[in-house]
């Protein structure tokens, strides 16, 4: 099968799964079976079908030149078409493998907490996965935008699942911010890109993701565009992608914490926020091109803003007593690592490829770590009905597996070896410490990035490790003594142990992950603008 055709297969699977879930709605076991089967099939297709093809050295770069798989052509510049490239593969792999875990976990959680509307729940999950695959394999900005919106809409019922007024209000905040940013900023950016770069009607790439970047090619082919416009568009894109949760558009994430834990895990680790940062990386590389952004030299603000977000979100996290809120702010902070990587890539030169690798690696590392943390939070909620950090005294003795997994994931968040977080921190520091001109001197903004990483390490330790300490080193509270409980249901423990082991395994068996992110570096030699400006 043609490489790009796989992308449609990968999208069709969750859609078929959704149909099956709907059909089996009355028979919970069949329905959950359909979910698991779909997730497994998707993982199989992505990891065994697509990944090997991409990882064959040089294959994908050839395939990249081949025309994308065009599902629907609407009008010039607007087409639903798909193409497989390494960055998308990273995202698709992360999402599909964690979806399987999440499904196992969700079954345990939903049954353990006797939640209602489970068919709708699994259905929306499958539809959301469909859109995730669409985002991952989109070959143009329009397709990405479409599936980005589908993802927002399909996760709304998940966030508002409980149906309480509070849940609905929070879900409305979630929807409101995401839709506002995407419509009022991102879409404006997309339209402007089509107009500014001439678009398909004038023979330019228009909105198609292009090696080196749409703008770069446009400029190098003699196109003309003001630096200020490119800078403005970059701002529109970055803030338009609200899912990346760059401050100050982060508020939806804590609001969405009202959702059941599998959904939180899905939002924070598997799909939604990753869709955001993935899109940021993708537009940086394929729409603008690191060379273009380096040439306009007005993108330092992104690094400053990302650093600000990292530090401030961590500070706020430190003062959250609700465990899931703390994790939510942690996510905001960690996402900005990836945005910062994208920002560093805009410094151009030797920094760009390694910074992009850092972004790709952190997508993987953060996904595994954060899903474990959320699984643990949900496990605690299911077994002990506790939601606050201050209630967790001594809980590690009763739920050793859960809390051990939590501890491992915390270390990964901090970036301590031997966990996946170390790898991405390594790459990120490489990006920050590689000088753009190759001369060994660091600019102010790079120093800033390095210092932010230092601070973030300390702050991460500051809000994660006290939880671990509480769980293992404090005596059980009198209240807890009175309400004995054990570990959470087996599917939950199984899922969170798997992801925790995955966090460590990613460190020891980093072959696949590193090979993948290296494809980014190999495939996108940083090129510079040689005209235009």
């Amino acid at each position: 099968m043609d490489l790009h055709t796989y992308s449609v297969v990968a999208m069709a699977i969750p859609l078929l799964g959704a149909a099956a879930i709907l059909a089996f709605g009355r028979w919970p076991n069949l329905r959950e079976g359909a979910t698991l089967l779909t997730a497994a099939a998707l993982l199989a297709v992505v990891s065994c079908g697509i990944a090997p093809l991409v990882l064959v050295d040089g294959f994908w770069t050839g395939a990249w030149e081949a025309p994308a798989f065009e599902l629907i052509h609407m009008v010039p510049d607007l087409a639903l078409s798909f193409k497989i490239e390494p960055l998308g593969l990273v995202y698709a792999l992360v999402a599909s493998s964690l979806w399987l875990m999440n499904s196992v976990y969700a079954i345990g959680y939903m049954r353990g907490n006797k939640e209602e509307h489970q068919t709708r729940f699994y259905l929306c999950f499958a539809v959301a996965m469909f859109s995730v695959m669409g985002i991952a394999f989109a070959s143009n900005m329009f397709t990405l935008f479409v599936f980005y919106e589908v993802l927002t809409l399909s996760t709304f019922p998940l966030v508002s699942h409980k149906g309480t007024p509070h849940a609905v209000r929070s879900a409305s905040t979630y929807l409101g911010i995401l839709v506002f940013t995407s419509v009022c900023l991102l879409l404006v950016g997309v339209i402007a890109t089509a107009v500014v770069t001439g678009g398909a009607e004038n023979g330019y790439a228009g909105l198609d993701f292009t090696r080196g970047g749409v703008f770069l090619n446009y400029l190098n082919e003699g196109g003309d565009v003001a630096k200020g416009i490119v800078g403005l568009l970059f701002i529109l894109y970055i803030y338009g992608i609200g899912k990346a949760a760059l401050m100050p558009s982060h508020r939806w994430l804590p609001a969405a914490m009202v959702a059941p834990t599998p959904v939180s895990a899905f939002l924070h680790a598997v799909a939604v926020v990753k869709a955001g940062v993935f899109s940021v990386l993708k537009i940086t590389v394929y729409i603008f091109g690191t060379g273009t952004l380096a040439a306009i030299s007005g993108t330092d603000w992104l690094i400053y803003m990302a650093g600000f977000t990292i530090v401030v979100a961590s500070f706020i996290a430190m003062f959250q007593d609700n465990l899931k809120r703390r994790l939510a702010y942690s996510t905001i902070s960690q996402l900005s690592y990836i945005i910062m990587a994208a920002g560093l890539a805009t410094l151009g030169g030797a920094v760009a490829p390694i910074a992009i690798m850092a972004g790709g690696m952190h997508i993987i590392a953060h996904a595994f770590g954060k899903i474990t943390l959320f699984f643990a939070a949900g496990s605690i909620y299911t077994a002990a009905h506790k939601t606050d950090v201050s209630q967790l005294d001594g809980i590690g003795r009763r739920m050793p597996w859960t809390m051990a997994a939590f501890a491992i994931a915390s270390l990964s968040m901090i970036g301590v070896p031997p966990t996946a977080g170390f790898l991405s921190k390594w790459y990120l520091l490489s990006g920050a410490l590689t000088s753009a001109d190759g001369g060994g001197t660091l600019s102010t903004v790079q120093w800033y990035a390095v210092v932010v990483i230092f601070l973030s390490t300390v702050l991460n330790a500051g809000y994660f490790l006290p939880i671990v300490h509480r769980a293992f080193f404090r005596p059980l509270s009198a209240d807890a003594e009175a309400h004995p409980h054990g570990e959470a249901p087996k599917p939950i423990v199984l899922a969170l142990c798997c992801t925790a082991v995955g966090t460590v395994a990613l460190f020891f068996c980093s072959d696949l992950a590193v090979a993948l992110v290296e494809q980014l570096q190999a495939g996108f030699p940083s090129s510079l603008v040689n005209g235009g400006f």
Partner: protein
Amino acid sequence: MIDSIPALMVVLPLMAGVITVFTGKGDKPWAWATAITGIVFAMSIALLAEVTAHGPVTYNFGNWPSQYGIAYTIDAMNGFVLFVVSLIAAVTTYYSRLSVKDEIPNDRLHIFYALWLLTICGLLGITITGDTFNVYVLLEISSLTLYALIAMGYRRDRRALTASLRYVILGSVGASFLLLGIGYLMMITGTLNMVDMHDRLQVLIHNDEYSRTIMVAYAFLLVGLSLKLALFPLHMWLPNAYTYAPSAVTGLVAATATKVAVYMTIRFLFGIFGRDFSFGAVESSDVLLTCAGLGVLYTGIQAARQNNVKSVLAWSSLGQIGYIVIGFSLNNENGLTGSVVHILNHALIKGGMFLALGCVAYRLGGTRLTHLKGLGRKMPWTMAAFTAGGLGLIGFPLTGGFIGKWYIGLGALDAGNWLILVVIMLGSLLAVIYVFRVVYAIYFGEAEPDSVHATEAPASMVVCTWILIGMSLVCGLWSEWSVDLAANAAKAMLAGFGGAH
């Protein structure tokens, strides 16, 4: 045969409308009207094909030369609008059987369908004619019958009467403004034929003769047209008229009446005055953009606070008209293409949604938000259609609504007007809010006691609803054909009078 289609397009429904009065009771008037609109629709397709293939078609009544008699000229622009109008007419007519029976006293069905056909006749006539005075005449035909149709909603809600009355007054003012404008133009050009009028006006403008008179004519026409197309702030007649009219009437009117007015405006601005005058000598672009932009925002907010869903859609229509006005006011190809294609897409979407509400009204007797609560499970097909239409209103990608906004957006940036682009997007955001309120009630709300036993609407109604909604989706997905048609129309209009020379 093809030669006389232009005449038949108007004459057929006119005669048929008169005959309807005598068709008797029961389903017969409906069957008759359905047949006629079906034929008209077929003819419009034939015409559109002809125009697309061979360029403009001209038909002179009684073979009088155009400067003396009445000429019907169909080019890419009005061929397209004719297609839209007759399509909507055919579908809503077929749809109307049960809905009308339910809402109109059964002894007046024949009158209803007579008026119905006459309205359609007027709308088609306005579109097809190449004679400015004929425009006025047919406008009066369509308006007067429409007032009556709207008033027929009184059985369900007596507010239909006041709404209709208000429409009568304001519509008449608008019509008289138009008449004044046309009169001035005739006075200085000595012709009523649009092509001739355009040619002579260009000469006059070029020579700087009668410029004040032209200016006044322009002002009267533009204000009259603005009123007819319900441009903010001259929109006051519309919301209540749409809300309290019978369901089928709302479906027809919302999809066609304002669209035809938009067509007229484009025709006058580009085809008769010429874009150099309309957007060059006179700075109407700013005025129109300001009004439309404010209108998009204002009506969006209003729509978000309505409790009657029909009212929500009515206000939403005003916003969508705002987009269309923005599109052509940008005075460039992308913008005008967007306007034209949005005429089609919005007609399909809004028509489909009103029909869906008609289904709800048929089952539940009302269309308030509380009626729609929890209907997602009880009327899944209808509600799915409504939701799909709602996505279109928002301008969600892959729906028809997106295509128009996309082109209008491109046009805005072509004109270098970022602000208006932002306004369009804010308008979409407001659309998200008002659509989402309803959709949330549909799928997540708890059904009211009254609607617990509601079931899916009759198949004929659902199918009609889905024809329109389905077409809007098709136009969103495979939009090349509609955009091509619109782009042709836009090119023609930008070139002056429809390329009829």
